[in-house]
């Protein structure tokens, strides 16, 4: 039996195409991936991301536990601030990538990937030497992402919380339609926008109100298909693709979330060694030059020899190119290298390019 979010009936009423996404019955598309993608880039789109997990860490020493199990330095977070971080095994490879929200000095709120939630919870609990309360709280929250240049205007109609006062990667505990909501200016699309966490019983009302509030901007519901093309254009990692239990954040180019000077954390010795000795492989972007689309798992060749693999690839609707990300030997993972992507056993020309591919105008 697939798990359902509180918005399942709303998706079906919108004629969404539903798929099994890691055990969740989720909408992959409504009007079409390209249409939904373009709506988020140009106006506003609405995503149900209630499948995402939440883990709460509470206690006087909550910071010690959070900082020990994550790569970024949670001590730098102010109240109401969010950052992206990594949860690593002792091997230096990913358990998951997460968002850490500082709710209070003794309370951190973690947003984690849906299919990793239980694994993450057990991993954090296993390292809890600080007598913190670690709670697997996914069922207490529904999450709706309002994304795009008109996201602020759309959401502002429903809340007295001054959204312009919330900076990118900050959040406020406020209200939406008079009901409690955690409003975070975060997202996974490369656009401005908000992710709101509400009680599951409130989700459908908020969804419908947001659809109505965004009507003047042409708001559309957007599914996992557009979520993937949007995040790929923005060069954001997806667990199971750019990062997984065999890859480190340094290999994935996520050095900016690794703070080796913050004290001990799980996986740090391996990362220090990797940094000292140099990487053997590294993530890089590519753009198809020949006819064909590089997709996840396809082999990448350099000078005719197998050299790496595609982690994510496909059409980039905003840029109107076929793009992707791949792992290559570290010495070759630089922009401007001619490579071949093996598309159904045929080599197709491509060239390496920097990540991200798309950056919104600020």
């Amino acid at each position, binding site marked *: 039996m697939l798990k359902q979010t509180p918005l399942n009936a709303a998706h079906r009423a919108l004629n969404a195409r539903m798929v099994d996404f890691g055990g969740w019955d989720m909408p992959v598309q409504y009007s079409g991936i390209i249409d939904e993608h373009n709506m988020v880039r140009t106006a506003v789109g609405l995503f149900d991301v209630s499948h995402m997990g939440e883990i709460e860490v509470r206690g006087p020493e909550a910071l010690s536990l959070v900082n020990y199990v994550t790569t970024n330095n949670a001590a730098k977070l102010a109240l109401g601030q969010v950052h992206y971080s990594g949860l690593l095994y002792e091997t230096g490879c990913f358990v998951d990538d997460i968002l850490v929200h500082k709710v209070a000095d003794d309370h951190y709120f973690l947003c984690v990937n849906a299919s990793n939630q239980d694994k993450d919870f057990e991993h954090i609990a296993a390292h809890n030497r600080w007598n913190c309360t670690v709670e697997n709280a996914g069922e207490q929250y529904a999450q709706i992402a309002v994304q795009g240049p008109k996201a602020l205007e759309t959401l502002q109609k429903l809340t007295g919380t001054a959204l312009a006062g919330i900076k990118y990667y900050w959040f406020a505990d406020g209200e939406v339609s008079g009901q409690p909501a955690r409003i975070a200016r975060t997202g996974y699309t490369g656009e401005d926008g908000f992710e709101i966490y509400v009680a599951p019983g409130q989700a459908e009302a908020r969804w419908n109100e947001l659809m109505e509030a965004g009507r003047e901007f042409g708001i559309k519901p957007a599914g996992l298909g557009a979520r993937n093309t949007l995040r790929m254009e923005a060069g954001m990692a997806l667990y199971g693709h750019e990062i997984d239990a065999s890859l480190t954040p340094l290999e994935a180019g996520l050095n900016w979330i690794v703070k080796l000077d913050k004290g001990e954390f799980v996986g740090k010795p391996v990362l220090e060694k990797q940094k000292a000795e140099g990487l053997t492989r590294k993530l890089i972007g590519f753009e198809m030059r020949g*006819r064909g689309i590089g997709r996840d798992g396809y082999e990448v060749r350099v000078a005719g020899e197998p050299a790496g693999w595609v982690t994510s690839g496909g059409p980039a609707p905003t840029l109107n190119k076929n793009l992707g990300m791949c792992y290559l030997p570290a010495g070759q993972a630089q922009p401007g290298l001619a490579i071949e992507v093996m598309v*159904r056993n045929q080599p197709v020309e491509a060239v390496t390019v920097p990540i991200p591919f798309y950056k919104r105008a600020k």
Partner: protein
Amino acid sequence: MTYPENLRYTKEHEWVAVDGDTGTVGITFHAQKELGDIVYVDLPKAGSAVEAGKTFGSVESVKAVSDIYSPVTGEVVEVNSLLADSPEKLNEDPHGDAWLVKIKLSNPGELGGLMNAGDYTAYLGE
């Protein structure tokens, strides 16, 4: 959706329209709908031999790659040049302008194994 009576259909959602000894092959409305936005079509060159039930190319949507299986055996005599630059036509007119290839049939008897419009509609459960 009403499926044209003059086409024959496969379980893999291709169609063939026969005129004399030539079959025009495409994918069905159902196939393009399931795929979503089609962004790339990979087709054989004219002169290639194709075999009924064997894959001869692929159609790619934003999200997925799908094989195309030939409904008939024969030789490709023409490839639809429209699709190289406008693959999205497959979403718009899959039973018409967005045909894929024309095949010179070497075994017209194979057509008897394909579904007519009524059978295909029933097969889709529509």
